[in-house]
């Protein structure tokens, strides 16, 4: 899901439109980078529980994908992102973030180290313009693969077994490893759900063949095609933030000072001050100890989703807001990602002000919030290698 609003000139069909269209009961489409993407195909409950208990198939082709190659690719990327790309080995994927000169987050994404001086960057926001600026002066080439590389995300406990049936040998593929076959299919052990799962990338032409192969391999293992709504629940349970929801990509902000530093988003550990210069470093050195607010995970009392609630210290002073809040079906709690003003981040008396509307009646609740330092849900199968066969 991108926050850049494309002019509504009609949504484009993605590479799996035929398959998705046929499965869509709910006919609920949304705009993801201009593509018609499913919010749900059937209903969110079925889809979510397939993701956590069986396996889910989600089209991630609308992601922006950029190839960065050339002798100075590492050098160029090391100026772009805040972590040290020289520490990412070939065959590995790394979560990376990049900032503007003022140290404000532009976007996050995954960096695939495909080969010597050959990388792919996947992200939510369109980034070609920025990458071309970042590339100027380096001996590299940027190729926009967004419309030529398709992607499927298969997540859930039976995903490994399904891919085995489909003929992929992933026994030694640890989280953040990837595997490439001779036909240009790349399978990485990554995902946006915190569960056991894989993301598969391949040229558009292969889209139908791969869908069929995986779909057929999953028929006995509960594979279900899903839309973004279910993924959204899973990603909040995993504690992952989303562009435009939990952080404001600074290049899409119009007001001054709406950007956020990695330290304000609790991803400061991705900033490597020791690696040499990178974009925003000078500003971040100054800002690292002065976060204005902090993105934290909270367990919220009660059972009503706390999305968008304002947060009060001692039920009195407004000190923050919730950017993502759901009732988690798996942990059976109301959970939230929330921005809290720095001086209140350790306050023991934080309350979410939750409003619910029922049959014409508004009810206001003040629910106690307790910080949760770890992901809300992190099943051990996500890390186990080789994963358990089902």
């Amino acid at each position, binding site marked *: 899901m991108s926050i850049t609003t494309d002019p509504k000139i009609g949504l484009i069909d993605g590479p799996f439109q035929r398959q998705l269209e046929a499965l869509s009961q709910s006919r609920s489409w949304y705009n993801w980078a201009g593509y018609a993407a499913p919010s749900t195909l059937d209903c969110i409950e079925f889809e979510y529980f397939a993701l956590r208990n069986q396996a889910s198939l989600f089209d991630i082709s609308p992601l922006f994908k950029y190839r960065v190659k050339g002798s100075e690719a590492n*050098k160029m990327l*090391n*100026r*772009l992102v805040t972590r040290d790309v020289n520490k990412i080995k070939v065959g590995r994927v790394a979560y990376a973030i990049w900032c*503007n*000169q003022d140290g404000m987050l532009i976007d996050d994404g995954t960096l695939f180290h495909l080969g010597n001086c050959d990388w792919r960057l996947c992200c939510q926001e369109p980034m070609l313009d*920025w990458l071309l*600026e*970042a590339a*100027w*002066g*380096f001996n590299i080439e940027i190729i926009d693969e967004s419309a030529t590389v398709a992607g499927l995300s298969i997540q859930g406990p039976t995903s490994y077994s399904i891919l085995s049936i489909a003929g992929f040998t992933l026994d030694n593929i640890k989280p953040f490893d990837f595997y490439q076959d001779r036909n240009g299919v790349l399978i990485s052990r990554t995902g946006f759900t915190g569960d056991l799962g894989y993301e598969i990338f391949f040229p558009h032409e292969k889209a139908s063949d791969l869908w069929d192969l995986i779909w057929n391999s999953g028929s006995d293992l509960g594979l279900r095609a899903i839309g973004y709504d279910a993924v959204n629940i899973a990603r909040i349970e995993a504690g992952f933030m989303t562009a435009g929801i939990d952080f404001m990509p600074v290049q899409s902000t119009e007001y001054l000072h709406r950007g956020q530093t990695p330290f304000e988003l609790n991803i400061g550990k991705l900033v490597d001050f020791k690696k*040499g*210069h990178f*974009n*925003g*470093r*000078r500003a971040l050195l100054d800002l690292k100890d002065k976060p204005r607010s902090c993105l934290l995970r909270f367990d919220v009392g009660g059972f009503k989703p706390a999305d968008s609630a304002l947060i009060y210290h001692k039920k009195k002073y407004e000190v923050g807001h919730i950017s993502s809040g759901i009732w988690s079906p798996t942990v059976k709690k109301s959970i939230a990602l929330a921005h809290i003003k720095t001086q209140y981040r350790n306050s023991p008396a934080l309350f979410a002000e939750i409003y619910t509307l029922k049959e014409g009646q508004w009810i206001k609740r003040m629910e106690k919030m307790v910080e949760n330092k770890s992901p809300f849900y992190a099943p051990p199968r996500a890390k186990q290698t080789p994963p358990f066969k089902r």
Partner: protein
Amino acid sequence: MIDYDAIVIGGGINGIAAASMLSSKGKSVVIIEQQSELGGMAAHKREGPTAAHLLWNLNPKVIKDLGLGSISFDDLTSVDTICVCESGNHIRVKNSGAFYLDGRVVDTDGSFRKLTNRLSRYGVLLKKLAENAPFGTDDKLNSTQDILRLLRFGLSLKLLGKSQMRKFLQDILMNVSDFLLDDLPDGPLAGLLSADATRGQFSGPRNPGTVFNLVYRYGHGCELTRPTKGMENFFELLVNAIKKLNVDVKTHVRAEKIVIEEDAVKGVELADGTTVFSNTVLCSSGLNSMKKMVGISYLDIEDSRSIKNLRTMGTTAKVNLKLSKLPIFENIKGPINDCRFIVAPSVDYVDNAFNSCKYGHFSQTPVSESVFTFRQSEFWLSSIIQFVPSKLEGGWNEAAREHLKQVLVHSLSAFIPSLNELIVDFEVITPNDFAEDLGVEGGNWHHSEMSLDQIFNLRPTPRFSAYRAGPKGLYLCGSSSHPGGDIMGLSGRNAAIRVLRNTK
């Protein structure tokens, strides 16, 4: 290890000004210059006279820092302007009065004088702004100072009186064509001012902001001088002065690399393999050369983007014609080398000449400013031709140079009919030659275009307008920084003041 308190890369007027300011405040300084002599673009030459031949804006404060309080009437000669007219009845402009050579007054209603007086008034205002860093670039510590300065500037605006102040604010952003033709008929005087406004620019008289350029040029009261003993001698004076101030000078050696450790400047690596160590480096080259010396990895992406987008097209060429003897001008009184000769008969003519430049050509009817120079026993006619693009279609080959010379000679024949027979030798220095020899993109007169989007706080780029760039200890002191080029020295001086403040 530290060899000097500061290293200055580039020994042009701004490098010299920066070094003298620092040194007069007790800092040890070295200038690194790739050419064999100091003087930079202004003093650049081949066999014949230097690129620059007139002093427009030499700043008294710079001269004072140099300890040259006495540079004055002996060393500088004031220069009259002769506007060349096809009719043969040329116009002499002297102290903002305009006369035909036969003695008649041109400016019968006094409108030219009024206009130039207005320009000088504006110039006084701009000068105040030029002698300091742009507003808003001070770090927080000094912002009271900044506010005071702003108030003082506001006050001097107010003191113009309400209608004058309005007029100033309206005029300054205008194009010079509209500005001039409001008060003057289109002709040699309007042509002269539009040529002065656009010399060194990639903009014609109808481009917005050219009034600003004209005011900049006339910044110090319309008084135009030349060094009495020649530009080389003038720079010799400056060099002797900085040597007296104990500034070390290394010539004929290129700065290759600015050494950086832990995001702080440590020194400069030279082409001869040696390294000079210092925690402060002031760079007066163009921004692209600076970028190469620093290494792009040390610049933020926004900054390299600004450098990439900087408009630096060079538009000025120098053509020197060596003459067998001096032509004789019957009705020009006084020494002929105390005049500059302007070929710019009208605003339209100037605008036409610029049109060619837009499309990668030089005009067949060029705008030029020429002076006669005597060197030893040689006579030279030395011309600055405007609107000669650095990116010439077809490239700068021998034929193109020859062609440029012919075009110039043809247009000058209007007042020296015998010119062609007098020429014994010639040389053409193109904007590209300046670029290559001096490390200044495009060979641009001001290092980067002086247009409304590249002046004051936006000069050279919004982020670099406080004379600071990239890693700790790196400063910009060339004319691409505020206020800009000409033999003025304020960019260097302002940068040095910033260094002194930051290293206190």
